[in-house]
C-alpha cells in the first residue's frame, strides 16, 4: 500500500471540504473494494477520508411508499431489515446475495453505488426501481447517475448521503453469480411500477448497468416470463472475460430476465 493521509471527519460536509482541498483524496466507506485495491497498489490516493465516524449517514426508513437507505448502511443491514423486506423484498434479497458475509457486514450501499463496478448488484436495483441518489449537493435520478465504467455523475467533492427507492408493485432480481467472487456475471432486476416495467442488467455491459427497452415494452403488454423468452440482446457491447464471453452473457440476460419475471410473479 502506498502511504496516505488519514482523515476521520465527523460530518459529510466536513468530508466534502477535505475532498475539495485534496484532489487526489478518496472517500472510505466500507472499504471492501477500495482497501484491497490500495493493497494491490492499483490505487494510491493521497488522502483517505473515512466516513466511519459520520453517524447520520446510516439507517433505513420508509415514508409514503418510498424506502430511504443511508449511504453508510451495510449490505447485512439492508438484507435483514424488516422495513426493506416489507417495502421492496427484492432489494433485501439482492443485498443478502452480495459478496460473502464479511463483505456484507461492512460494505455499504453508498460505496457500491459510488464505485459503479460494472458487475455490482445495486446499480441494477437503482435503475430498475427508478431510485434517487441524494448527495451533499443535490438529488440525482439514477438514470442520470451511472455514466460509464466505474464512472458516475458525482463531482470530485460530492458525497452520497442516502438513496431513495420507490416501492414497486412487483420486483425481483436474479443473478448468475461468479461462484468465487459472488459478483454478477449477469444480473437482471425487473420491476413493475406505476410508470411501467423496467429491466436493468448488470455484470454484462462494457459500460456498466443498462436497460433492455425491448423487454420492457413486451412486459408492459404481458408481464410473464414467456413475454421475454424470445427476446435476445445483441452480444455487441457486452463484456468478454475468462468467466464468460459476450455471446454467453447475451444468452444469460434472457435466461435471467425470464427467471426474474417469474420470481416477481
Amino acid at each position, binding site marked *: 500500500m502506498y502511504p496516505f493521509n*488519514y482523515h*476521520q471527519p465527523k460530518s459529510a460536509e466536513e468530508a466534502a471540504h477535505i475532498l475539495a482541498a485534496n484532489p487526489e483524496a478518496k472517500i472510505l466507506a466500507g*472499504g471492501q473494494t477500495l*482497501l484491497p485495491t490500495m*493493497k494491490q497498489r492499483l490505487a494510491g490516493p493521497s488522502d483517505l477520508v473515512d466516513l*466511519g465516524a459520520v453517524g447520520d449517514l446510516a439507517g433505513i426508513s420508509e415514508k409514503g411508499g418510498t424506502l430511504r437507505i443511508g449511504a453508510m448502511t451495510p449490505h447485512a443491514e439492508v438484507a435483514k431489515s424488516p422495513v426493506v423486506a416489507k417495502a421492496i423484498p427484492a432489494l433485501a434479497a439482492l443485498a443478502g446475495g452480495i459478496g460473502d458475509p*464479511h463483505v456484507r*457486514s461492512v460494505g455499504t450501499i453508498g460505496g457500491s453505488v459510488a464505485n459503479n463496478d460494472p458487475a455490482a448488484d445495486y446499480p441494477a436495483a437503482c435503475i430498475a426501481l427508478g431510485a434517487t441518489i441524494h448527495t451533499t449537493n443535490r438529488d440525482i435520478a439514477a438514470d442520470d447517475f451511472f455514466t460509464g465504467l466505474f464512472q458516475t455523475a458525482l463531482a470530485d467533492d460530492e458525497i452520497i448521503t442516502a438513496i431513495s427507492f420507490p416501492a414497486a408493485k412487483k420486483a425481483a432480481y436474479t443473478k448468475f453469480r461468479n461462484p468465487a467472487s459472488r459478483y454478477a456475471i449477469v444480473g437482471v432486476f425487473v420491476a413493475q411500477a406505476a410508470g411501467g416495467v423496467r429491466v436493468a442488467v448488470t455484470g454484462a455491459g462494457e459500460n456498466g448497468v443498462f436497460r433492455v427497452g425491448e423487454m420492457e415494452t413486451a412486459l408492459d403488454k404481458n408481464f410473464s416470463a414467456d413475454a421475454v423468452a424470445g427476446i435476445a440482446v445483441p452480444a455487441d457491447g457486452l463484456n468478454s472475460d475468462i468467466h464468460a464471453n459476450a455471446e454467453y452473457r447475451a444468452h444469460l440476460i434472457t435466461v435471467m430476465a425470464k427467471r426474474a419475471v417469474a420470481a416477481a410473479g
Partner: protein
Amino acid sequence: MSATVEINFTLNGRKRQLTIDAGLSALNLLRDKLDMTGTKYACGEGECGACTILVDGLSVNSCLMYAADFDGRDIVTIEGLRSDKGFDPMQDAFVEHGAIQCGFCMPGMIMQARHLADTNKDLTYDGLKRGLEGNVCRCTGYKKVFDAVADVIGIAK
C-alpha cells in the same frame, strides 16, 4: 488530519483505551500492538476470512478495517471465545470432528461459525455452507467443518 488517534473500545469484554497511528489496520493492531496472534494474517485482501473478528456482533475481515473504526465498538476475537468454563462449544466441536488440519484458517472459521450460530435461528445445512463462504480452507475440504458447525447448531446433515 492527525497522525495519531485515540480510540476507546471493548475488546473481549474489557474496556481499552489506546492511542494509535491513524491508518493502522485492525488486524495489525491486534497482532502487532496487542500481541493477540490468534487472529491470522493470510491474504490481507479480504478474500480468505482468516482474520475474521466480530465487530458489534457482525463478522468482519479485520485486514479490511482501520483500527480507528474500533472506536466505540464491541470487539470479540478468537481469544475472547474461551471463558473460565473452558473452550467455546464451537471450538470443542471443531476438535471433536477433526475439522482441523494445518489449523491456520480455524480461528477465522470458528469466529464466523460462532457468528452464524448466534444470529441464525433457522439455519439449514445448505445455509451454513453459504454462511461460511467467506472463509477459505486449503486442507480440510470443508466437510468436517460443516459437520462440526451443524452439530453445535443442532441441524441435520
